[in-house]
């Protein structure tokens, strides 16, 4: 049982991180904090992949003459791509945040939702006058 625990220990740390990021993402109102949560969440998933690719006693997957056992290169490739996707999303999210700040004057999600609701209510009143 003890051995089992260590077999999976790495995965559990990753899961903890994932949950921490996910929590930040959905529990906080600040848009930038949400994006950071998103990043933590994603990097935890990356770590999961890389853990999967590791072979104990293996080496970096760059061929050399005196090395027999390599770690698995495929997860590395996938995660390279995923990291890039992550940064692209982050850039776009931040750009949106800037625009939201300019349009609403705040980056707190609650306030924004409230403002949107107010706008709806105003429109409703207009309609009611007809």
């Amino acid at each position, binding site marked *: 049982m003890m051995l089992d625990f260590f077999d999976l220990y790495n995965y559990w740390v990753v899961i903890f991180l994932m949950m921490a990021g996910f929590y930040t993402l959905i529990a906080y109102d600040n848009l930038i904090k949400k994006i950071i949560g998103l990043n933590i969440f994603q990097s935890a998933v990356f770590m999961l992949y890389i853990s999967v690719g590791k072979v104990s006693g293996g*080496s*970096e997957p*760059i061929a*050399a003459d005196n*090395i027999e056992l390599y770690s698995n290169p495929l997860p590395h490739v996938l995660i390279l791509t995923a990291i890039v996707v992550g940064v692209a999303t982050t850039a776009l999210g931040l750009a949106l945040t800037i625009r939201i700040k300019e349009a609403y004057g705040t980056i707190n999600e609650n306030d924004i939702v409230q403002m949107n609701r107010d706008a709806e209510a105003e429109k409703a009143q207009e309609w009611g006058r007809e």
Partner: protein
Amino acid sequence: MFAATCLALLVIMAIALIRAFIGPSVYDRIMAVNMFGTKTVLFIAVFGFFSGRPEFLDIALVYALINFIGVIAVLRLVERVTHTGTGAGPK
């Protein structure tokens, strides 16, 4: 030998983290980040020897570079924020 050094570096990194957590001023944090970055560079270098494949020092170099640029960027932007008064100053 390398293992011991790695361990020591990890301890230093942990201490730097403590400073980064408790702050209190924004500059303390920047300093902690800088120190942390330097130690990461060393850690990568030593770890390369530890695992027997020391060829990959490029990464350490990139870390050093990124760390430096990061610190400069933070400083510039801290200055700018306090100058333009977007906030009440760094805390």
